[in-house]
Structure formats: structure tokens, C-alpha cells
């Protein structure tokens, strides 16, 4: 017997398994599949289906619940075991589905497989004496089809809904023979809190729950499976695309093999849309006309050369893309720097986590999520702030739900009563833009009450005195005055966070999109260091990155001040290294940031702009200003998969391949580099972005000749220490988390374990300055912006997915009931939202989830664009992020004649 293991015999095969392993899993080790319907390894055990019955030393036992015991002799077949299984299957099939011939599950149906295995060719319980369930299939929502007649009531969907998604939408209804799986009062799923994550259908062993869109597309045996990565948020879920005849028929995979969200599971049909860009477009007499690659790239190269010749390389800028691969971002910045000679390269991280990159680099030396997503489940206390996790990062929300289920304490700090607040121990409801105050307040209480980790601070950190001095004024009563967070709640939160064995900070845009963004991040870092909640499993500072590859775009140097791997442009040795490798000089001066690039275009100093897969018309602050900037350009070239709002202004539009049509890698929010795999050919003449970049660069006279993205990764690895050990050969499995510095380095799941990247963690004193544009008499409400679950960013993809669009078809403004009555508004009323920069007309949604005195507008909707309201001129001094989360607005009802 090995240590911590038990040795037993299963059908004569000796196996050694860890203590506590259920027999069912132990049998898998021996290569034996014990039939089961209700058991699922990621769910609690129900022990109801009875199929997994085995004999342990001659006594019947349930293999799903009975732990392997040392020296036992297990029989999994034969005699009464087979009889019992046959009887149970015969009973289940006595109430059988009627359409096995046309069932989508055929070929992957557990029930079908077991019926075959146990040779159930007759049934004694069919006939006039025996009742069968009669229930029509239900399609009461855009995504999920439910066929009660096929349901074996194993309850996996019920448990997945509760235990994985924290929803409790599905349950049992009725009793006896009439029992069924249903939502409350058997209402349609669209009227429940269902998020359509589809975990229920992913765990369904029969065809009772299936993808609506899949019906009569292809049999399971006709499908081709391609492993890849989800193109939406930064969670980086592994996906399997199942294709038939060049179309994605269904999507499986995800964490634990089944955890996905509605967008990943049901939101990928956009790749097949008719309105994909298929040929290069060139503007002629004001209109986009179809062109050839030859012509379009020739024209683009000529114009770029002309502008560089006339105005110098500093008149050219590029916006790279957090949606594109690591290889493409690498090539984009290489093109800008080496082929065109400018550091004016940036991307949308400027609008999300620039303060994280800046702040955490100052405090710890590395600006990324310190721990992993699964690691959040290890925490005993979770502090979530500025992240509406259930909507923006659903898979991270699952980790939080699971941790809370297991007893972790949850603190939510958010002006809105987001869904996580419903299960939180403490909800701190600060006023928008006052984060430094309550964060400092927490530090104040932790110091005052002696709750800090002296040993950790003394050994691993520096400049505590600066922090002590800075947080001294932030007594709980002062904090209450500044933020609206009560003395008692602040103290409770401080004690929970500091007192926990393992506490983790989870945050997102609500922390960064402020003029105090970097200060906010530093204040968060201060707390983690002060309490020693960093550098261990279940702890850390965990900024959630918004885009599938925003981490990678930053890592690969699509930033104006750093080269790949955060190597500073200002460092001559770094420049020399890249110059040697590239055979071209790297410009010395740091470039402009994204917001500054748009400003410079408006001002006329930037003449040419390359945009790859970004849509600043919808995502940059102050839409009018962006429009004027784009109109002022001599050359705007856009590479995209759809004609976007920005592409409308372009002189040249180049059709790109979507995520499903190319190879490459994405780096998820947890620093995990994962392989994207080509499943389909691009539509029309569209090309992968990396190929477009290669062709353009070569035309510009700077040759790029890569046969496959793997070659680009090899070049990246040779120049980027944190990616030094990464190669396609090593990415076949679950990917690798950087830093991964050499071919034998296993990757890093938890940063700063022995020491901080910069050596000692450094406390930074930060002070509360209040929001940049506080509400006043003319603009009495504070506006915040954010995401909704069903859409992604400027909706370029999600508005082209019927079901997602059906769930949330239009924009809205969320307001508190008190404000609603003040402005004479009710849910559904048309309302004009006006800021100092512009106004939009949208629909009011009155809800207690909003804080009184604030309004919330999702930023996805071009026709009610949040960026018509937000300001571009109030920037965080360090990171140059605009204050997208706090500006002042007023509301007026719109009266239609």
C-alpha cells in the first residue's frame, strides 16, 4: 500500500487509488466502466439511480458512494448485479422516449449504451396495463430544448444548476410517477433567474435537455470535434466545437469538461453570419467597394509609406486587438515598431486594466492576476469589488459560488446590489468613485485593531510607515462620511478579510476605470500585503481581465511603453536585443496611449491609424470626439470580421478570419496560454490577421515570412522571458501559465510565492480625491457603466446571435425607485440621459439593485451608447485610463407625440 492510498481488487484487477476514492472512480482506474446515470464527478452524489450497484466482499454496495477500502474484493458484474441493473433499466425503459431514431443524443446517450450492454430487447412493462408519460417537448426559451419524456430524473441538471451555477432554477415538481424536472411553478425558463449557461444539458445523460439549435442538424457520429478556446471574455474556457458540413452544431467542453456560460455555449453562431466581411473593401467616391488583396494591400502600403515620408513615423499609430491571438499581437507591434518605426501602439487594455498593469507592477513587480481561477475556490474569504462577476466573468462567479457553498465568507463592495451581493456576508455599498476611501478605511481598521500580518510585512514588504501615515485619517466615521459605507460594515469586512486563513481579492473595471484607477489598485495591493493574503493558494490580488486575449495583447507588447514581456522601451539593452532579432531599430520614445492617439488624430498630429479588431466608435469615451478624430484621419485601415461602426469611417477594410478559422494562442486572465485551433476555412477571401500583417509588412519592405503561428511563438519565446518555455508542442494539454521561462518550466499558478517579482512588496500611500466629475445640481446622478451577461463589448458578435439578442435586445438605464419617482420614470419608459458631452435616449429599468443617486448603462449598445456620455479628458495620471465608471448625468422622461 502506497502512502495515502488503498489497494483493492476489482474484477480481479489490482488497483491502488487515493483514500476516499469512490469505487466507481477506482474502477475507471482499472479500465472498468460501472454503469451510472445520477453520478457525475463534479456534482454531489445523489445515490438514486441504483445502476452502479456492485458487490464488495459479497455485499451489495453503491459504487458511486462507497469509498474504495483496502484489501477489498469488488465484483462489478454478474449474478444479482446484472439482474438488478437489468430490472432498473427495464423500468426506466418502460417509460421510454418515442423518438430514439431521431434523437440528437443517439450515439452519445448513456441510456442507449446501457440498454445495449444489458441486452434489453424486451420489456415486461409495456402494454395496456402500463402507463407512459405523455409530455410535449418544451422550447420556452431561445437556447434549451427540454423533452420530459426522455428525462430519467437522474437530477444531474438540478444539481449542476444549484451547485455549479448557484441558480437553483431547476428542481423537481410533482410526486410519484408524475415527478418531473421543472422550474418553479413549471414556468418558462425565461421567467426564472436562468442564465442559460447550459450546464444542465451538458450533464444530461439522456437527450432530455439539448441545444435547441441543434435539432435535425447532424447525428452525433457525423460530428467532427475541434479543441479550441472561447473567444469572449478573459476566463479562457477550453471549448470543443462540434462541426458538421462546415458549421458549428454544438459546443461542449469548458472547465471540468462541462462548465461554460451562455455566450460560449450558445453564442458562436456569429461566425456563420452572411454579413461577415469576405473581401477587402476600398473607399471610392465615399463608398466601400469590393477589391482584391493585391489592390487593397498595395494601396495601404503606398499610403502608409507616403504619410511616413511626409510626416514621419510619429504620424502613424495602431490599435491592436485583445480579440486577436498572441502571435498576431506580437506581429502587430513588430509591424508598428520595426516596419513603420513608431511606438504608437496600444489596445483596449488602456480602457480596462491599464491601472492594474501600472499599479501591480509598482507594488509587486508584475501586473497580472496573481492566482488562478480554480484557486479562488480555495479561499476562505473572498472580497469582490468592482466586478459584476456573474455577468462579466460567469465562470469565475462559479468558483465564488462553490467557495461560498463550502463555507467561504464573501464580501462584496459595489454601489449596485449585484447578484453576488445576495449571497454576501457583507455588502459595502460605496458611492461611485470613492474606492480609495473605503480601501484605506479597511487598512486603517486592520492596523488599528492589530489584525495585520506582522511577520509577512516585516519579511516580505517595505514602506509600511508610508501606508500607516496615509491611512491614519481614514477612520470608520470619516469613511462613512466619504463613501456611505457604515462604520459597522467596514469593521466587519476588515475583520473577515484580515482574519481569514486565506483571503482573495477579486476586482475588475469598477476599480480601474476611474481617474484614481491606479491608486485604487495600489490600495488593493496594500491590503493584500498588509494581511499576508498573497503568494499562497487561495489568496492574492486577482484582476479579472475582460477580453479573451487582453492579457496576451499586453504580454506581447501591444502597449506604447513596453516590448513583449513588459520589457521597457526605455531600456537600451532591451531595444538592442529586439533590434538584433528583428534586424530593425526599435524607436526610443514611448508612444501614445489609445485615448491619446484618438486625441492626436483629432488634433491632426496622427495622420494614419491601423485598427485591428477594435471598435473605438463604441468603446472609447466621448463618441462625438472619436467620430471627429476618425473623420480627420488621412488614412484609416480597419481589419475586422464584421463591418463595425468604426469600419464605416475606414478608407480600407480588410476581412479577417474569426477565432474558429485560424490557429494561434490566447492568454486568459489567469495567465494561461492556450491553443486556438482552426476548425473552419475563413469565409470568402478573409485571411487570418497574422497573414494579413505578414503580407502588409512585406509590402512595406520589412519581410515577415512565417508559415504557421507556431513559428511566431518560437520567436516570441526567444525574446520574451515570461514566455520563454512556451511552444506549441507543450500547449497540447491544458496550456501553460506564465511565467514559464524555460522548456522544462512547469508554468506558474501562484505568483509571488517566495518573493515578489520586484523583490519586496512595496506599500504605496494613496489618498482619496473623490470622483472626477461629481454629481451637481445640473447633472445630479453618477453614471456607471458595465456589461450584461448576454452581450459582449460593442456587440459586434453577440448582436448577430439570435438568442442572445432576444434575451437583451436593447440598451437601458438602470435607476433606483427613489430616483425614478423623482424623475417621473417607470420601468419601460423612454428616458433621455444627458451628460456634459452628449445624450442618449434609452429605456428606464427601475430596480433596487441600483444605488440611489446613481444610474447604470450597459456599454454594449451603439444606439444607446454609454460612450456618448462618458468623458475622455479626465484620465488617471499614471495609466491614462479614462473615468468610464463615474461621470455626472441627468435624466428626463421622453414624451412621444
Amino acid at each position, binding site marked *: 500500500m502506497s502512502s495515502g492510498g488503498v489497494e483493492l481488487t476489482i474484477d480481479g484487477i489490482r488497483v491502488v487509488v487515493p483514500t476516499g476514492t469512490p469505487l466507481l472512480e477506482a474502477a475507471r482506474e482499472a479500465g472498468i466502466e460501472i454503469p451510472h446515470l445520477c453520478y457525475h464527478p463534479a456534482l454531489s*452524489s445523489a445515490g438514486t439511480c441504483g445502476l452502479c450497484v456492485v458487490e464488495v466482499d459479497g455485499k*451489495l454496495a453503491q459504487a458511486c458512494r462507497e469509498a474504495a477500502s483496502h484489501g477489498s474484493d469488488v465484483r462489478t458484474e454478474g449474478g444479482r448485479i446484472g439482474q438488478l441493473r437489468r430490472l*432498473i433499466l427495464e*423500468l*426506466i425503459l418502460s417509460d421510454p422516449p418515442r423518438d430514439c431514431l431521431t434523437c440528437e443524443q443517439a450515439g452519445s446517450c448513456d441510456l442507449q449504451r446501457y440498454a445495449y450492454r444489458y441486452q434489453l430487447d424486451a420489456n415486461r412493462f409495456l402494454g395496456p396495463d402500463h*402507463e407512459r408519460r405523455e409530455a410535449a417537448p418544451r422550447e420556452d426559451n431561445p437556447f434549451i430544448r427540454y423533452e420530459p419524456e426522455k428525462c430519467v430524473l437522474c437530477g444531474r441538471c438540478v444539481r449542476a444548476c444549484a451547485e455549479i451555477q448557484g441558480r437553483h432554477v431547476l428542481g423537481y415538481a410533482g*410526486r410519484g410517477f408524475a415527478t418531473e424536472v421543472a422550474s418553479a411553478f413549471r414556468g418558462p425558463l425565461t421567467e426564472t433567474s436562468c442564465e442559460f449557461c447550459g450546464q444542465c444539458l451538458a450533464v444530461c445523460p439522456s437527450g432530455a435537455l439539448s441545444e435547441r439549435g441543434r435539432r435535425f442538424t447532424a447525428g452525433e457520429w457525423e460530428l467532427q470535434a475541434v479543441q479550441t478556446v472561447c473567444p469572449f471574455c478573459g476566463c479562457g474556457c477550453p471549448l470543443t466545437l462540434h462541426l458538421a458540413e462546415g458549421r458549428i452544431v454544438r459546443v461542449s467542453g469548458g472547465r471540468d469538461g462541462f462548465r461554460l456560460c451562455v455566450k460560449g455555449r450558445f453564442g458562436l453562431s456569429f461566425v456563420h453570419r452572411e454579413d461577415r466581411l469576405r473581401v477587402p473593401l476600398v473607399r471610392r467616391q465615399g463608398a466601400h467597394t469590393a477589391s482584391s488583396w493585391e489592390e487593397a494591400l498595395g494601396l495601404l502600403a503606398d499610403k502608409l509609406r507616403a504619410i511616413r515620408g511626409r510626416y514621419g513615423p510619429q504620424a502613424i499609430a495602431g490599435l491592436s486587438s485583445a480579440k486577436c491571438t498572441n502571435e498576431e499581437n506580437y506581429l502587430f507591434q513588430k509591424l508598428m515598431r520595426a516596419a513603420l518605426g513608431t511606438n504608437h501602439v496600444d489596445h483596449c487594455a488602456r480602457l480596462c486594466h491599464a491601472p492594474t498593469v501600472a499599479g501591480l507592477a509598482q507594488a509587486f513587480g508584475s501586473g497580472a492576476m496573481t492566482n488562478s481561477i480554480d484557486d479562488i475556490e480555495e479561499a476562505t474569504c473572498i472580497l469582490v469589488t468592482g466586478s459584476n462577476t456573474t455577468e462579466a466573468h460567469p465562470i469565475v462567479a462559479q468558483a465564488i459560488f462553490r467557495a461560498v457553498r463550502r463555507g467561504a465568507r464573501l464580501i462584496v463592495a459595489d454601489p449596485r446590489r449585484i447578484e453576488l451581493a445576495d449571497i454576501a456576508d457583507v455588502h459595502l455599498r460605496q458611492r461611485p468613485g470613492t474606492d480609495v476611501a473605503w480601501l484605506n478605511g479597511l487598512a486603517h481598521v486592520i492596523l488599528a485593531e492589530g489584525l495585520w500580518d506582522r511577520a509577512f510585512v516585516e519579511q516580505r514588504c517595505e514602506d509600511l510607515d508610508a501606508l500607516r501615515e496615509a491611512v491614519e485619517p481614514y477612520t470608520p466615521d470619516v469613511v462613512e462620511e466619504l463613501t456611505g459605507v457604515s462604520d459597522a460594515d467596514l469593521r466587519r469586512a476588515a475583520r473577515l478579510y484580515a482574519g481569514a486563513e486565506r483571503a482573495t481579492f477579486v476586482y475588475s473595471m469598477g476599480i480601474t476605470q476611474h481617474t484614481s484607477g491606479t491608486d485604487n489598485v495600489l490600495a488593493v495591493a496594500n491590503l493584500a500585503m498588509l494581511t499576508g493574503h498573497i503568494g499562497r493558494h487561495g489568496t492574492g490580488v486577482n484582476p479579472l481581465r475582460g477580453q479573451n486575449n487582453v492579457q496576451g495583447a499586453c504580454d506581447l507588447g501591444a502597449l506604447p511603453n513596453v516590448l513583449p514581456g513588459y520589457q521597457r522601451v526605455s531600456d537600451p539593452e532591451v531595444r538592442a536585443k529586439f533590434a538584433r532579432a528583428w534586424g530593425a531599430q526599435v524607436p526610443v520614445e514611448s508612444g501614445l496611449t489609445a485615448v491619446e492617439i484618438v486625441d492626436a488624430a483629432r488634433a491632426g498630429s496622427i495622420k494614419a491609424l491601423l485598427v485591428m479588431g477594435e471598435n473605438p466608435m463604441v468603446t472609447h469615451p466621448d463618441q462625438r470626439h472619436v467620430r471627429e478624430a476618425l473623420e480627420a484621419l488621412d488614412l484609416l485601415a480597419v481589419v475586422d470580421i464584421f463591418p463595425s461602426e468604426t469600419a464605416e469611417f475606414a478608407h480600407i477594410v480588410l476581412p479577417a478570419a474569426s477565432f474558429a478559422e485560424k490557429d494561434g494562442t490566447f492568454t486568459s486572465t489567469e495567465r494561461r496560454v492556450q491553443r486556438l485551433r482552426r476548425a473552419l476555412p475563413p469565409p470568402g477571401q478573409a485571411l487570418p490577421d497574422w497573414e494579413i500583417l505578414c503580407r502588409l509588412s512585406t509590402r512595406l519592405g520589412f519581410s515577415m515570412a512565417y508559415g504557421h503561428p507556431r513559428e511566431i511563438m518560437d520567436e516570441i519565446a526567444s525574446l520574451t522571458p515570461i514566455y520563454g518555455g512556451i511552444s506549441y508542442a507543450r500547449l497540447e494539454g491544458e496550456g501553460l501559465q506564465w511565467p514559464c521561462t524555460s522548456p522544462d518550466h512547469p508554468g506558474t499558478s501562484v505568483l509571488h510565492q517566495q518573493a515578489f517579482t520586484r523583490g519586496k512588496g512595496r506599500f504605496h500611500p494613496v489618498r482619496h480625491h473623490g470622483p472626477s466629475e461629481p454629481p451637481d445640481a445640473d447633472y445630479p446622478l453618477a453614471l456607471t457603466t458595465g456589461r450584461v451577461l448576454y452581450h459582449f463589448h460593442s456587440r459586434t458578435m453577440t448582436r448577430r446571435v439570435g438568442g442572445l439578442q432576444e434575451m437583451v435586445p436593447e440598451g437601458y438605464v438602470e435607476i433606483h425607485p427613489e430616483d425614478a419617482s423623482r424623475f417621473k420614470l417607470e420601468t419601460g419608459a423612454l428616458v433621455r440621459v444627458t451628460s456634459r458631452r452628449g445624450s442618449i435616449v434609452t429605456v428606464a429599468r427601475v430596480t433596487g439593485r441600483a444605488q440611489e443617486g446613481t444610474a447604470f448603462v450597459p456599454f454594449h449598445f451603439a444606439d444607446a451608447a454609454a460612450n456618448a456620455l462618458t468623458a475622455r479628458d479626465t484620465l488617471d495620471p499614471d495609466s491614462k485610463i479614462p473615468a468610464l465608471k463615474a461621470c455626472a448625468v441627468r435624466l428626463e422622461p421622453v414624451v412621444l407625440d
Partner: protein
Amino acid sequence: MITNLRELERLGEEGRRSLWPASGKIVVGTASCGLAAGAQAVAQGLFQAVQEHRLAYEISGTGCLGYCSQEPLVEVRCGDGLRVVYAQVNEERADELVAGLEGGDLSPELALCRWQEEAQPARKDPAAEAFPHHQQLGFYRRQQRAVLRNCGLIDPQSVAEYVACGGYSGLATALTMSPEDIIGTVGRAGLRGRGGAGFPTGRKWALARKEPGTRKSLICNADEGDPGAYMDRSILEGDPHAVIEGMAIGAYAIGADEGYIYVRAEYPLAVERVREALRQAKQLGLLGEGILGSSFSFDVHLMAGAGAFVCGEETALIASIEGRRGMPRPRPPFPAQAGLWGRPTNVNNVETWANVPLILTRGAQWFAGVGTDGSKGTKVFSLVGRTQNSGLVEVPMGITVRELVYEVGGGTADGGRCKAVQTGGPSGGCIPESLFDTPIDFDSLRGVGAMMGSGGLVVLGERTCMVDMARYFLRFTQGESCGQCPACRLGTKRMLEVLVRITEGRGEEQDLPLLEELAEGVRTASLCGLGRTAPNPVLTTLRHFRHEYEAHVRDRRCPAGVCRALVVYHIDPERCLGCGACRTACPQGAISGEPKKAHTIDPERCVRCGACIEACLVEAVRPG
């Protein structure tokens, strides 16, 4: 607030005055059984009559005296302590009774018996001897009312009367002991769980006690759901404080700070009485912070069920309290490890809790002195069915089925042969007459394939079809299956369908082994007690009454004359007097005939309800 023994004693004094007022008292059995028989109107009638006659008798309600078939029961409690019980009192008799009382006449002709507790000194005076002692009645002779000691004596809504009868002194005693000593005492007493499974209570408590955890819970399972069982309802209605006191003692022993009483919502009176008792106990500091001046704190909440039989299963019950659908979950973890809200939780049923104060006041030795080696104490049964004396009975463990059926129950109502008894409701089994000498204790009953169950005991006569009865219970369990396990949800469904087929005359020989195979599968492959025991009624009737099944499938005949499809009623023209009694009784108008001539039954219209058989004076109507 009661903070010490002296204050408790003072409350008892008050209770004694209320129990035994010098001016006399009339108590009416106002448990559900009494109320169903009209006790409310009787009580009002008594009250008015007492007013009219300007008598000083107080009128109050009390719990069930047990003799339910004799309800409404009224007791006149004389100032000198004489207790006379009157049966089947209606408003008219109430007037008569009170009128007699005015002249000091106790109306012996209307009386059932004189009630005298063992503890009371025997009275030899002529006034008392005019009435039979209650233990001279067959119904009471073999009974030993310990758990039911206060039912029918005290006003269940008077905590003072409960205290007067020794109530809460068990708790007071417990608080002077160590928790381990209490668990030891309960263990030595040999108390086993009265919910049916008979798990030793002391051991169960010890398991919950030794679980780590700062907060523990306990639960009183009052989700009594077996058809025909009403022991727990009667205890809650008649003596709610006994249960609360038992729980408080248990909580102290286990280290629990919170308890729940989970009562079926179909027991509105029990819910109301428990609620009032909890209010009183909290008001007096018998529950809450610092009970009886000690440092022990314990509170009890009341939770009404929502009508699901399966919630009697402890894990389903816990889910239901937590606000989830009442569905059993696998054990382990057992509730003692992770129960309500994940806390270590001890679940016992009503009767078990009601036994606990007795063990503390009378001692483990007393308790262990009653009953058999393996099953100590008494057991309460609700004796129903074809019995002459239906009611709530409490007998020492070890009494035989025969003694219970024939002595306490007085045989069948119609004097016919008693064929079997069914114990344990839908989870239990039947015991045929040939095994009536089996002693009633946990192990002996299990030995004959039946079970103690929670105490429902149905007497079955010749006119009971055992196949039909099995079908009845299967229909019940099928309807109450929570649906999780295919074996239970579908297995009981298919068993029921086979039974229906048999009772409808379409059964085949191979249906019997099929039933046995299904029964075995359901028993083995179901998660909880409901499913695991659901086949019992079928298995035991197949074991003891296989010939009845065979008569159905081979001869297309129902020997008991119950299964309509297999029975044709006919009137023996030789015997028929032509009296017309059957014709009058027939609800279908299926019987015709001239007066004084033999009548006939139209088989098309006849629904085989049996009304004619009951009505016939000469047994001329026969099923066949």
C-alpha cells in the same frame, strides 16, 4: 419567569388547584377524535347546563383518553377526587348529566367507568364502587399509560397542570446532571426510537454529542403520515409540554441550542397546541436563555409540513425545514454529523421525546423494568380497522398481538374472525392470525416480516382482501414517492399496475414472481426508507396470503368478496325473507323484489359496496 425549583413548585401548586378544584370540574376530551365526534357542542352544552343549574363545576378540555370509539368522552371530577368517565355523550346526555349533578347524582347508568390512577389511593367508598374501575374494562385492563399519562388528565394548554403532574421536574433533574450522565441514563433505560426503526436513543444522542461543532440542533419528527396512525397527533394535542420537556433534556445532553418541531400541517389542532405550549414555555423561561436559572439555553421553533409523506424521512424533513423540496439524500453524512444547516442534528419522533421526561423522573431502572429484554418501556398504538374498540392504546412491550387484538381491542367489530393485523402502515407488513402469539417488540415483529413501525395497527377481518390491501398501500407509496429513484418511482408504479391487474381479474400466474422480483428490486435499489420498505405490504401478503393471490389469478375469484370485478352479489332465495332491508340500503337501486318474496340484485347496477350484506338480517346476501 421560573428560575428555580421553588418557583416551579409554586406553579405546580397552581396547577393542582386547577386540576382538582374543590368545587369539582367537568373535562371534555377535545382532541381531534373527540372533536370529530362532536365534543365541541357537548362542551358548550355542558357549559350552558352548568350555568342554568347554577353549579360551580368548571368546564375544561383535555386530551385523548384513548377510547376513541366511545367519544365524546366526558369526565366528571368531583371535589373529593372521584373521577367518573361518561362515554358517547351527546348534548342531550350532557343536560341529563348536569341535571343529575345538581342533586348530587353521578348518573351511574350513563357512566363508562371510574378512573383511578395507580398512584392514587384506592377508594373503597360506596360512591366510588358504584362504578367499575377503568382497569376492569377490557380496553384498559392490559394498558399501561405512561407516555399518555397526562392525556385525558390535564388541560393541554395549561403548563401549570402539566407541572402539577411532575412536568419539567425531569428537566430540572437533568440540569443538575452532566450531559454524559443523562445520555448514560437514557442508554441504561433502553429507550429505542419510537419512529419505527428502533435505534437506541442513548447511542444516537451520544453520536450527536461527540460530533465537533459549536452549534447543534435537534428535531422532533411529528410528520406522522401512515394511514390510520395518530399516536403522535394525540400526544401533541394532549400533552405538548411533555415533548418540549423531552427535547430540552435532549438538547442539554447533546449540546444543542436550537430545536424544531416539524408537524404535519394536516394536524391543525396539534400545531395550535404546540404553538401555545411553546409560547408558555418561553414566557416562563422553560425555553430560551438561561433555562430554570441555569446557563443552559435552548429554543424551539415550530414548522408545519407541506403535505409530503416522505418528509417523515429525516433527511427529507431536514431539507423541508431548510426551505427546500422535501427529498431524502444519501447517508452518510448522517444528521448527527451534518444535519440541519449542516450542523450536527439529532432527530427523534414525538413519542420518543415524550418518554424522556419519564426516564429522568422515574429513573432508568423503572423504565427498563417495563417491556422485554430488547425492547423496553411501553408503546403507543392506534388500534383501528375492524376492531371493536378502536382507539389509542399504550401497552407494555412484549404483549402479544393476540392480547392486543382480542383483549384490548375486543376482537372484530362484527364478532367475525380476525384474519391479520397490519403494522407499520405502508412500510410495514401484515401478521396473520396464526402468528398472533408473537410478542410485540422490535425484534420479534421484524422476525415475522412485519415491523413495529410508528404504531399504526390495523385489524383486518374476513372481509378484507389482502391483495386489495396491498394495492391500497402501493397506491399510497407510489403517490408519495419523491421520484428520485427509478426503482421507487417506476418500480412501485409497475407493482401497483400488476396489483390492479390482479384485482381486476386480469392477473396471470407469472404476475406473482414478477411482483416478487419487482419488490426485491425496489427494496434494494431505492435510496430511502420509503422506497426500501414500500414493497413490504406486497411481500408479507404474498408470504402469508399467497392463496388469496392465487385465487385471484387462477380462479378469478376474490375470497373476501372485495374485488369488484371478481365478485357477483347474489341473494339466496332460500334464505331471503323479502324484508326489503337490502333494497333500502342499496345506494344504486340495484335490488328489487316484492315484499315477503325473495329479492334479486341487478349485477349491472351493483357496485359491490356491501351495504346489502351489512343490512341483511339473515345473511342471505353473499358475494361469490
